[in-house]
């Protein structure tokens, strides 16, 4: 039974709605009123959400094995025949096609749902800003790119969305382009992402060469047998013996794709752009740099799970990179004073959690955490936006405090989000985080320890933030103090909805150990099912320690919360004492381990130096010595030939002339032009002749 219905037949409309309004905004937006802009842009995302929800419902109507719909709109890049590494000829085609299966269902709902709430929030938040239409134009363009990314049926179209969200991120980070720091941050985000993208592209090339196709699957097409798919090609290659479990080429593909994910999802060593990206408007940070775009790498790895399952070494790298990033970023979050910077490091850390999940083979747990994180992190970012809004733009937590009763809705929803991210049951974060930690423990206790420590750190720095912001004495500047006000309804309603989702959002993944059915995992099962013996075994591994692990993770979270209360409410002097006890450590963390400075010194400035050096080389050597040198040589040879010409060639001619002149000198002496001397000469000649002949005659006569 194949899934059908209006919404399923029109999934291609989902990205098109926001694209249409984006185009309208960017072309004619300046002539529209703010009201019209809001209605059109928020409305289009809502319509997209309705279509997405409708499509997912229609997908749910069929049995799990058939939950896939794929629509190919047209051939996008029909580049012609190519050779695979096995020496076969295939036609390379990247189609413009969309795929809705359980995995993309989750993503498309998160993107349109959370995206809609953030759009709604933006009406209030950005209402006073110039360039309102431009903001919404970019934001809708982002929705188009992100939806293309999650709905793409092949890697190259995914890459379109991938680059598209990067571009929108660039534009929105640099929204306040008059500020140099904002423009710099946008550029940095773009270029760091490009480094990852280069790896991603090479990964796509290697897949195309190895498997002959870049389409994810042929499932859900009206005529599957007529199309190739990575999934099917992998199965055939493994079945036919061409590729084995752990084949080096699969590891290479896995690693190259992961390079792309590291860039987009801000993992070590390419995370440096995300904290700077906080220069953008806060709703942008919520949408792009927390809930959706930065999770694209997680989605992509989950999408390629069939390949990663065959490449255990690559998965191990994913797990280690994720775990390291999780704990590393969490420590950096400890000492930040900018409310959004704390959030940024928290996001990097939580993304590390997701990669840890993927790396230990718990793909559905990774996506589960992606979803719950989208709820509570969007909530937290929007909440901080509301705080910043209330404080007329103040972002430094040292100038906050005591806001609990002044902005009640923001404060309460923020607290809900904080409890959720700390992993306290029964809020959303608990379920997803716990599942990850459980799976990590089965894979390797060391990874579990890292995740466990991170959980404690997370609870600590988040409650540090809450305490500094909402509790204690007010440190707000005087002129700001009397402007403090709760945000308008367009901003608080999204906060309330997201807070509700942060509470109940995890319940669909209620684990079996606590009497639930983990319906989320079952829903994703068709896409991320274990495909190898090894993964099947790992999945079957029982949860003997499950309760113990749950207790431990809740315990460490509570410990973190308790510490935060001790440090920042009870004995506010403690942090300073600790900082004074180990000043170098504090400085190291406060300065984010000097990673930006190291990168600048090692790569950024060296590249610029190389450019300068090559520029000089180009002017002095290639052009100077080479071209101008040739010119000089030509002039030199020509002056040599002129000399030769003048002194040798012409000289010979002149010499001949001179010789002739010299030899003619005596003769010329005779030519005086004086008649009398001629007459004398004639007489003398005559006499000589006569003498000669006289002599001759005398001889003859003899």
């Amino acid at each position: 039974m194949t899934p059908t219905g209006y919404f399923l037949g029109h999934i291609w409309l989902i990205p098109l709605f926001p694209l249409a309004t984006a185009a309208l905004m960017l072309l004619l937006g300046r002539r529209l009123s703010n009201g019209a802009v809001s209605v059109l842009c928020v409305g289009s995302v809502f319509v997209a959400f309705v279509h997405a929800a409708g499509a997912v419902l229609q997908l749910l109507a069929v049995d799990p094995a058939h939950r896939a719909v794929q629509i190919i709109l047209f051939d996008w890049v029909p580049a012609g025949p190519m050779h695979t590494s096995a020496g076969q000829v295939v036609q390379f085609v990247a189609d413009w096609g969309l795929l809705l299966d359980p995995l993309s269902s989750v993503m498309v709902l998160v993107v349109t749902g959370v995206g809609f709430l953030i759009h709604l929030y933006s009406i209030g938040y950005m209402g006073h800003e110039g360039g309102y239409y431009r903001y919404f134009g970019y934001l809708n363009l982002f929705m188009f790119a992100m939806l293309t990314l999650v709905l793409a049926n092949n890697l190259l179209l995914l890459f379109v969305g991938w680059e598209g969200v990067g571009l929108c991120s660039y534009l929105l980070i640099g929204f306040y382009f008059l500020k140099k720091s904002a423009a710099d941050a946008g550029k940095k985000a773009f270029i760091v992402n490009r480094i990852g993208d280069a790896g991603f592209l090479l990964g796509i090339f290697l897949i195309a060469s190895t498997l002959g196709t870049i389409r994810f699957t042929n499932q859900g097409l009206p005529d599957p047998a007529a199309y190739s798919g990575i999934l099917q090609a992998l199965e055939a290659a493994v079945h036919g013996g061409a590729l084995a479990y752990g084949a080096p080429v699969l590891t290479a593909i896995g690693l190259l794709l992961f390079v792309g994910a590291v860039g987009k999802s801000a993992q070590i060593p390419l995370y440096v752009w995300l904290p700077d990206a906080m220069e953008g408007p806060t709703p942008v940070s919520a949408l792009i740099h927390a809930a959706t775009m930065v999770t694209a790498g997680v989605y992509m790895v989950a999408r390629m799970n069939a390949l990663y399952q065959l490449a255990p070494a690559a998965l191990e790298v994913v797990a280690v990179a994720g775990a390291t990033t999780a704990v590393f970023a969490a420590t950096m979050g400890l000492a930040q004073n900018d409310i959004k910077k704390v959030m940024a490091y928290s996001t990097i850390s939580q993304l590390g959690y997701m990669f840890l999940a993927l790396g230990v083979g718990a793909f559905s747990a990774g996506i589960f955490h992606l979803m719950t994180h989208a709820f509570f992190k969007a909530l937290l970012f929007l909440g901080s936006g509301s705080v910043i809004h209330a404080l007329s733009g103040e972002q430094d937590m040292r100038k906050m405090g005591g806001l609990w009763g002044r902005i009640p809705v923001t404060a309460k929803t923020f607290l809900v989000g904080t409890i959720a991210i700390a992993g306290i049951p029964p809020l959303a974060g608990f379920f997803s985080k716990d599942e990850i930690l459980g799976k990590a423990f089965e894979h390797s206790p060391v990874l579990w320890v890292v995740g466990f420590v991170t959980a404690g750190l997370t609870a600590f720095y988040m409650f540090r933030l809450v305490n500094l912001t909402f509790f204690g004495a007010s440190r707000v500047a005087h002129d700001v103090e009397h402007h403090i006000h709760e945000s308008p309804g367009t901003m608080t309603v999204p906060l309330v909805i997201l807070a509700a989702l942060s509470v109940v959002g995890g319940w669909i993944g209620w684990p079996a150990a606590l009497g639930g059915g983990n319906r989320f995992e079952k829903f994703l099962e068709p896409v991320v099912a274990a495909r190898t013996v090894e993964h099947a075994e790992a999945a079957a591994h029982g949860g003997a320690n499950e309760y113990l692990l749950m207790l431990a993770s809740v315990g460490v979270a509570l410990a973190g919360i308790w510490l935060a209360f001790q440090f920042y409410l009870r004995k506010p002097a403690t942090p300073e004492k600790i900082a004074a006890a180990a000043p170098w450590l504090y400085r190291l963390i406060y300065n984010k381990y000097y990673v930006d400075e190291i990168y600048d010194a090692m790569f950024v400035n060296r590249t610029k130096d190389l450019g300068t050096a090559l520029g000089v080389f180009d002017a002095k050597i290639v052009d100077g010595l080479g071209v101008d040198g040739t010119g000089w040589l030509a002039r030199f040879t020509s002056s040599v030939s002129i000399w030769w010409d003048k002194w040798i060639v012409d000289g010979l001619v002149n010499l001949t002339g001179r010789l002739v002149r010299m030899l003619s000198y005596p003769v010329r002496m005779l030519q005086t032009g004086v008649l009398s001397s001629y007459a004398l000469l004639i007489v003398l000649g005559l006499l000589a002749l006569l003498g000669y002949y006289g002599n001759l005659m005398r001889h003859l006569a003899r």
Partner: protein
Amino acid sequence: MGLFENHLLSVILFTPLAGAILLLLVPRAWDDAHRILGNVFGVLGFVVSLPLLARFHAGVAGYQFKESAEWIPSIGARYTLGIDGISFLLVLLTTLLGMISILSSWSAIQSRKKEYYILFLLLQTGMLGVFMALDFFLFYVFWEVMLVPMYFLIGVWGSERRLYAAIKFFLYTLAGSVLMLLAILAVYFNAAKAGAPYTFDVPTLLAAVQQFPDSLKVWLFWGFFFAFAIKVPMFPFHTWLPDAHTEAPTAGSVILAGVLLKMGTYGFIRFSLPLLPADPALRARIIHIVIVLSLVGIIYGALVCMMQKDMKRLIAYSSVSHLGFCTLGIFALTPHALSGSVLQQINHGISTGALFLIVGVLYERRHTRLISEFGGLSTPMPNFAAVYLIITLSSLGMPLLNGFIGEFTILRGAFEVNKAWAAWGALGVILGAAYLLWLFQRVMFGPVTKPENEKLPDLNWREYATLLPLVALAFWIGIYPKPFFRYLEKPVQEIVERVNPGYYKAEPAKLPAAAAETQPAATAPASGAAPEAQPIGTAR
């Protein structure tokens, strides 16, 4: 209309020349008449090339619209024209960019208008002739003829160091073409020695070349190589380009980057590839040299861009980098790389042409090209900012814009042969984003720092008219490149079959799932292949 039916290429070729002759007759005193007539013929030149779109058959191998007439019978030179899918695209690019750059000169050129438009139209005819000529002699004549108007365009209407740049451009290119002339004559005589009649006919000679011994082919290859490498320009023969680009008037830079450089890559595809020796080791060595030069050009050009202070110089060096991708694609010898290369040549014409127009817009307002003189222009010129951003993105290879399609296919095709080539190319893509965005930021973002920039007027309708067609094309190629690939499919197949025999004859994929995807192309008869092309399986 018989003339149109049978001599379409001649009509396209000589329309600009007719305009030039007509302009000659217009008295100098009729001031505006020259630029009006120049534009009329610019548009006309484009309009007469449009029937090609309807009449060119993409699915047919070989040359189309062929015309041939006796020219100099004593040496066997004929007037032969014809185009395949590759030259089809380049001809249309030339007529389009010609029209646009003539329009862009409207207010930029204020002195000696008569001579300017005459020379520009002459240049058009010269360039079109290079892409259309199917007779080596005719080809050479056009190749050289085109130098003269360009020399004057730079030397008369250029900026401060125009004379230096013009002479450098002229001498450099001439040095290359002399070697090419020798190579052409060597082909001509050697082919005749092998028993053929004396002819300059390109297809005949290129078929005859296949019988030449490798030792001769190598000499001929390098003979042609220098002419084309200088024109492209490849590292290290590129230094005439920044000077010529910087000093030329805007329209000259557009044509120089958009079309003139493509004559080099076109020459590589048309003449150099068939001259590659048959011996695999020898061929591999030559290809290695050329590819390494291309990769060096990609990275080197991009790095040198970073330190430029002059916008035009920066864009000139970016051309060195971008053209590196094109030559990489040509010499990787796979269908993807080659069709990607041709597409990228078109893309470069669009993107870099537009970038030069953009610098021209600023130059006309401020009479400087120094990056440090600008900053914060987004505020006074928002529409200009939007267009400039789109063009920047197109140039740095943003998906859904043209540059991405070209770079992707080139690098994918190169990856097939050598993974390291693609990896170095990918590094160039990163650097491309860096220098273009940095330039954009320095010119457009931040507060307006110079009082002169505060009141700069935004784009006027004429500037829109020059830029928007290029923006539209950039989107078209990025979103729906299928028609372009269709035009390239046959000629690329023909060339790859010739230089990489058996590529198309390798075993088709047997995966049942992929069965329908392997279209007849895999088994198509090698209609245009050289006679000795044999199925020897795949190269790797």
